[in-house]
């Protein structure tokens, strides 16, 4: 393979991986953030304890989290194919990523919100803040640095999932590593894709940490 083709291949793979990762993360947060908040709010020490909801939602989250991503993807493949028309490629993988990642995101969000000082929540309640105001103005804002750090971890995890999905014809860099690096015995391509993945992870980690530190007013 000449350099031009290789670069084109890697370029396409990187773009696909980024799309899967970023769209996957975004949608996972659209689901996982409210679920994570709801787990905190309805928990035994929450501002509006709802035992049955908390138990059921906690159970669903745990069940999905305990399934390894590859197994989950294979198990859901038929349904994904039915819904979006295909079981392979970038969008099918993205759908599988979201299915696997939202419970993970929910737990990350829950962990971050647990760090918020209960005393501050109590102060807001004493001031006559509604539960919605407490969620928006206290929980999410006070936990912002931790949430951003969590988002970096979640993005990197989802990037890892997307690479794994490559083995099932999922597209992206993982797909290239398997098809060229593994099946066609081209270790150079294997190592180049690994390098690209490492660089992507580094960039995401840096952005996450820097942003979290910048947004944290406890540190300056």
């Amino acid at each position, binding site marked *: 393979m000449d350099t031009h083709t290789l670069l084109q291949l890697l370029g396409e793979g990187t773009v696909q991986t980024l799309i899967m990762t970023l769209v996957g993360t975004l949608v996972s947060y659209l689901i996982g953030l409210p679920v994570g908040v709801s787990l905190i709010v309805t928990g035994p020490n929450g501002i509006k304890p709802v035992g049955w909801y908390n138990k059921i939602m906690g159970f669903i989250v745990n069940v999905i989290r305990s399934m390894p991503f590859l197994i989950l993807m294979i198990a859901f493949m038929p349904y994904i194919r039915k819904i979006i028309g295909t079981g392979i490629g970038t969008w099918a993988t993205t759908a599988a990523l979201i299915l696997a990642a939202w419970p993970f995101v929910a737990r990350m969000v829950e962990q971050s919100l647990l760090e918020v*000082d209960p*005393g*501050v929540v*109590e*102060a*807001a*309640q*004493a*001031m*006559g*803040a*509604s539960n919605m*105001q407490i969620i928006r*103005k*206290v929980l999410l*804002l*006070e936990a*912002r640095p931790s949430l951003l750090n969590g988002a970096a971890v979640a993005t990197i995890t989802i990037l890892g999932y997307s690479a794994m999905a490559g083995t099932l014809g999922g597209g992206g860099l993982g797909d290239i590593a398997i098809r060229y690096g593994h099946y066609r015995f081209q270790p150079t391509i294997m190592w180049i894709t690994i390098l690209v993945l490492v660089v992507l992870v580094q960039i995401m980690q840096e952005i996450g940490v820097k942003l979290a530190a910048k947004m*944290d*007013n*406890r*540190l*300056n």
Partner: protein
Amino acid sequence: MAEHIISLQGVTKEFDTKGGKVVALKDINLDIEKGDSYGIIGLSGAGKSTLVRTINLLEQPTEGKVLFDGNLLTGLGSKELNLSRRKISMIFQQFNLLMQRDALGNILFPLEIAGVPKAEAPEKAKELLKVVDLEDRAHSYPSQLSGGQKQRVAIARALASDPEVILCDEATSALDPKTTRSILGLLHKINEERGITLVVITHEMEVIKQLCNKVAVIENGEIVERGEVQEIFKKPKTKAARKLFFPDGDYREKPLTKTSTKNRVRLVFDEATAGEPIIANMIMELGAPVNFLYANLDVLGESQKGQMVLCLAADKETADKQKEYLKAKNVEFIEIDEDDEYGEEVKA
């Protein structure tokens, strides 16, 4: 009849724990008048924090009623309760400021909650920073402020909603003595100048002495004694009150073993009796010495009170004469039982 801004009627609070039911508050009846600076003092675990939290219903009482300004708070829906809570501010031992907002942002918080227009809120918040002497720290974050400064921000935040009452939950317990004095001074000023009622939860007698006109002593979830601070200081009736009002330090921590414990009395001198050297005269007139165990000058709000623990003559006859002498001179005193550090309960 004086107006009761806060009224607790038969308030009982039980907690379900693994070890069974724990009764934190037992049938509390408490009326607080407008403009009072009402202290609630007790040792840790007595239930005072639970008590103050029932006033704004952060703790729902198991039984009983809570009234604010004549209106029933218990049983209100969350919307109405939130509206009432804006008139009952609260400050805390750990300040409980939003760490991600600067001083000004923290003071703006209750204004945002109450929906005060964005055009008016910052001006009001800045004014309040002036009231607490922190104009120059408007854009400092809590992590950049000292404990005393944080509590000042919390006080400004408490004032933002124009409250009728401020609940102070151990507000100075995390502060050093000097900062404590300045915070108590600020709270006193707010009580005096703005007429805001204070409910002051503390385990420290000094706080009551400096800040409160009335006090309730709470022990094991019950109010065992209450009244004007001046009166209770003179003649604490219950052991719980004596434990708190009696001199701190060695006298309380270690029972006296080196001196006689017979015929001990605790005297309180006020303005009327402080001018005359009564004890010296008594010794000379009766020709019998006394042993001084403790003496101190206390400041109660605006007034000063001398407190003294004496060991009178060992024989009963002379001791009785000495007591007669003190009574004749109008010195308030209570007798301290031989085997008791704090003296006998006075039957009310």
